[in-house]
């Protein structure tokens, strides 16, 4: 009994914190999404109406969802392709060097996300180093056109979220028993075959975790498209922000946010079920 009380005491600050600053705002969002707003006084009438949800079916907003999902999927795949060799290489290093390399992966997180994104503006810009090199090689004559384009947004997403892919991949790869790899080698498997048939399946939990960590925030991303896309591409995050900040339509903004959360949760559950069936998480 005493142990139970002690456990409850230890847990209560976390539970209180999560309830107050996560569950309550989330609940408010759900409640608002079924309400109506007075556009002048911003008083929300909390009566039950699904009006806000019915507006999401508009092709303007479904288009933004599709665009965001496509961009997020592309960024996740790119992060996986770039992050996997990095994580594999780190996991093969001596322990001390592993720590050093992991710190190097984490370095970008020491500065603000917004500052890092503005840093990319300098790199991708028409007067930046990439444009200068391209000009000096005679590859382009005028502007590079990388900044303020969908390609710029994609580069920004990959740059921003790559560490979130590398870390879970590293953990999964580092846990693979060396004896298993030696056995594969002894049985005649080449490096590529070992990678495909042994390492990748064993790293599946890390791959899944990395995809979730990158894919979900990238879908609702607001800062990167706004800064690197020159606001020429309507992403889902921008629509939500515009409804809250520009129009003041809280119910519709809430409905958009809740719908995205519901969709992402559903995708996650389906994904998890499929993975469980295939035994990757076993």
């Amino acid at each position, binding site marked *: 009994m005493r142990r139970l009380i002690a456990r409850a005491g230890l847990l209560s600050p976390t539970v209180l914190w999560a309830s107050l600053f996560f569950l309550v705002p989330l609940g408010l969002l759900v409640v608002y999404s079924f309400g109506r707003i007075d556009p002048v006084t911003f008083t929300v009438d909390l009566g039950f109406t699904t009006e806000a949800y019915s507006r999401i079916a508009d092709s303007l907003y479904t288009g933004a969802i599709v665009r965001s999902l496509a961009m997020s999927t592309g960024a996740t795949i790119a992060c996986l392709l770039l992050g996997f060799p990095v994580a594999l290489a780190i996991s093969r290093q001596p322990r001390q060097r592993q720590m050093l390399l992991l710190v190097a992966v984490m370095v970008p997180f020491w500065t603000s996300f917004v500052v890092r994104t503005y840093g990319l503006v300098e790199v991708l810009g028409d007067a930046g180093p990439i444009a200068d090199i391209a000009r000096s090689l005679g590859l382009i004559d005028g502007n590079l056109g990388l900044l303020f384009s969908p390609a710029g947004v994609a580069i920004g997403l990959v740059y921003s979220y790559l560490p979130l892919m590398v870390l879970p991949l590293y953990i999964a790869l580092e846990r693979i028993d060396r004896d298993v790899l030696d056995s594969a080698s002894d049985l005649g498997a080449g490096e590529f075959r070992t990678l495909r048939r042994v390492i990748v399946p064993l790293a599946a939990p890390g791959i899944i975790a990395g995809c979730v960590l990158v894919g979900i925030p990238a879908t609702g991303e607001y800062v990167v498209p706004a800064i690197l896309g020159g606001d020429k591409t309507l992403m889902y995050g921008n629509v939500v922000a*515009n409804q809250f900040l520009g129009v*003041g339509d809280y119910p519709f903004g809430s409905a958009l946010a809740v719908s995205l959360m519901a969709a992402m949760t559903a995708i996650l559950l389906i994904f998890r079920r499929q993975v469980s069936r295939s035994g990757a998480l076993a």
Partner: protein
Amino acid sequence: MTRRSLLQRGVSTGAVLMTPAFLAACGGSDEPASSSRGSMTGTISMMNYPGWMGEKQVARFEKANPGLKVKQVTGLTDGNAAAAAQINRNAGAYDMSLANVALAEQLEAGGMIERVDLDRIEGSDRIAPKFRDAYPYGIATDLGKVGIGVRTDKVKEKIRSWQDLWDLAPEYSGQIDIVKFDADVLGMALLKEGYSVNSEDPEELEQAKKALLELKPHVRSFRSTDIIKGLIEGTAAITVTYDYDVAAAQQEADVEWVAPEEGLPAYLDGWVALAGTDKLAAVEAFMADLLTPRQYADFINTLGVAYTVPSAGPDIDPAIRDNPALRFDDKTLERVEFEGYAGEATPLRARIWEEVQAA
């Protein structure tokens, strides 16, 4: 404020300030420190855009009014809807706010403004009539006109109108930056089509949308920050932005300010008292203080923006006063149209902006 503290301010400003109206506003000899117009002691809480104040303005006001402090709360950075919601949800917490015409109209419609008595605010009659008429909610402080900045070494043609911008866009495709505020972007398109920047007519807005869709393929970016960077470094040939941005770019590169013939969308900023304040007299005193020549010059010279008090000219930094983009020019001001609150057309206008972004 007491008569004693007023006298301590010295002869130079005293001559201007020692009028019955100002004393009444300050709760001087005519009124007790606390009256029906509110207290003249305590802290004035002001919602303000970050740094939108003269460098020494608040310190001077507080020194001259020992019983008063000014606390500036950062707001207004996320758009008018967010600002109005913040004020509404914290009713009574703020005594006053910086507000452009659109926000002031929205606050007024929602009963969130406490109208000040301009007769009690010494110096309010020095604000140019155009601005006083457009801003009856408080005192009009500054404005930002949307025009065109042109790199003269890159653009050989003469641009005089919004129509010229549209006509030349294919030639300068990918070298055009536009400030990212839907009211400004829609405003320039509406003016180009011959309509009011505040149009709520769906057909007129549809025409403006078509015009923007025609222009968009040639636009490099819609930006709210670093908008003049392209003009300065030469990666943009044409930039649609505020007068003060162009004035700043002119310090670094050969940039011409164009005030389009069809008209210029503009925001007009001002200070309003908010409903529920118990310091209306103090707010009025702070407004009157801003309009004193030294304080107003500090405000404009710190911010580097166009001004609403033409008689302040001699105290304004010549770099602002004589700049073609910022100077007080009646001919240009005749063509300026202030952006207002769109009311029920707000969602439609927002949707059009989203459609332009999505295209």
